[in-house]
Each structure stands twice: as structure tokens, then as C-alpha cells.
């Protein structure tokens, strides 16, 4: 996972084989950089403990898929695109990611799941503009998921 991780942590996880996992990437525009989703996420989630849990759950999605512990998933249809709302509760706050499948996979055959929008829960329902933004970002990959 990188030099920083190897230096401090030796963690061996002998997981059962799974074919349900995804390869997760954060959306970023073609001009490179960190991307709007990462920026928004880091701006709104300050506590290291919150980040640990959220990112830990997302890392498990890469192995377990949408059955990962601590994750709740809803399928959303918006603007002709199929999106997944990934919800993680950490320290009393609900964190939501709108994600989509652009229909490509990594060299290991795992479908790539793109985190298109981060929303810290404020209301029960998602804002339409958030869904529109996520759908527009997914459309940049040239399609929508099924």
C-alpha cells in the first residue's frame, strides 16, 4: 500500500478468497490533482478516528464488495445513471458517498467503483444537486452503470 504504511505497520490479513470486491478510486477531473471528492471529504472530516473508520470500511469494500461490515448501500437512479449511495456511520455522523461503476476493471478483474460525491449527512434525503453532480461526473467516463 505504500512506503508509509510498510514503515509503521505490519498487518497480515489472511482473508478468504472473494470475487465480490471492487477497486475503489476517487473521482478526479482529467486535469489531475487530488480531485473534488477528496478535497470535500478531507475538508469536512477532520477527526482522524472518523477517517480511520470510513477509510477502513472502504478498504473492506475492495475485498468484500457491498457486503462489507459497517456499510449500508442504496441504489439510486438519477439522470439516467445508476448510482450507489454508500453510507458509513462514524462517531455519530453519517457519511455518504455517491459512487458509480463506469464499466471498466483493474488488471485483476475487479470492477472499478468511482467515488463521485461526498456528502456529510444533514437530512434524510439526498439533495438532488448532489445526485446530478454525481451523475454528471459518471457521464464523463462515457456511460452509466447497470
Amino acid at each position: 500500500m505504500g512506503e508509509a504504511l510498510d514503515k509503521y505497520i505490519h498487518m497480515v490479513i489472511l482473508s478468504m478468497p472473494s470475487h465480490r470486491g471492487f477497486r475503489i478510486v476517487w473521482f478526479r477531473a482529467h486535469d489531475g490533482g487530488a480531485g473534488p471528492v477528496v478535497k470535500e471529504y478531507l475538508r469536512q472530516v477532520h477527526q482522524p478516528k472518523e477517517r480511520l473508520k470510513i477509510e477502513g470500511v472502504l478498504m473492506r469494500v475492495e475485498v468484500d464488495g457491498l457486503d462489507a461490515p459497517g456499510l449500508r448501500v442504496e441504489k439510486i437512479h438519477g439522470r439516467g445513471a445508476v448510482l450507489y449511495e454508500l453510507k458509513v456511520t462514524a462517531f455519530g455522523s453519517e457519511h455518504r458517498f455517491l459512487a458509480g461503476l463506469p464499466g471498466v476493471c483493474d488488471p485483476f478483474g475487479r470492477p472499478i467503483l468511482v467515488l463521485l460525491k461526498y456528502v456529510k449527512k444533514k437530512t434524510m434525503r439526498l439533495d438532488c444537486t448532489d445526485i446530478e453532480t454525481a451523475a454528471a461526473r459518471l457521464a464523463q467516463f462515457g456511460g452509466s452503470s447497470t
Partner: protein
Amino acid sequence: MRRKMKVVDPASVGLPLEAVVVGNLRDREYRKDFVRVNLRIEIASVVKRLRLARGLTQKQLAARAGVPQSQIARLEGLVDERIPSLDFLGRLFRGLGQRAALRVGPAGGRKSSVCEIALV
């Protein structure tokens, strides 16, 4: 069933998830709890996957293991911040009919530690 998909380099599609994790590992507090939090998530993952693989509901597993269903729901939902007790894990894995080993301790370097759960 998964359709045949075009293979791409993930970095060409977006920023890989671990890039943010590695960035956060520069934070001392984040680094300090990284192993503990991920071990908790790993334990929950193993229990949930074994339960689903055996076609058991939480209620059925609870009856087999002799623990309240609510505790299994809390474990799988990562509601509690603590790592479950060995007694509780022992009951769960007995209910699942699966042996597992938990190994903790230093791992070479002064700052390193190892935490792992393995099915045996």
C-alpha cells in the same frame, strides 16, 4: 454475473483509495489506531462472510453461538469501537464451526505491531 469489462489502470480513472489512506498515515493519531480499527473491521468481515457462506441469519448464528443477536448486529455494523472479547469471539466461531487464530504483538521494527486473524 459480471460482464466482460475493459481493463484499465485504476490510476488513469481516478485517484486510488489508498493514496488518501497513505496521506493520512502521516497523522500520528491516525497511525496509532490504524491496526486496532482495521483489526476490528477485519474480524467483523470474517464473521459476516462466514455467516453468509453458511447461509445463516444473525438470529440463527446467535442461537448456535449462545449470544444475543443484537451483539452480532453491533459487531457486523461496526457500532462498537472496542475489539470484541475473546470469549465472545470464541462463542461466535464455535457457532460458525470454524477455527480462527488471533495473533498480536510486535513485528520487527520498534514502531511496528502485528494484528491478524486467520482461519485455521
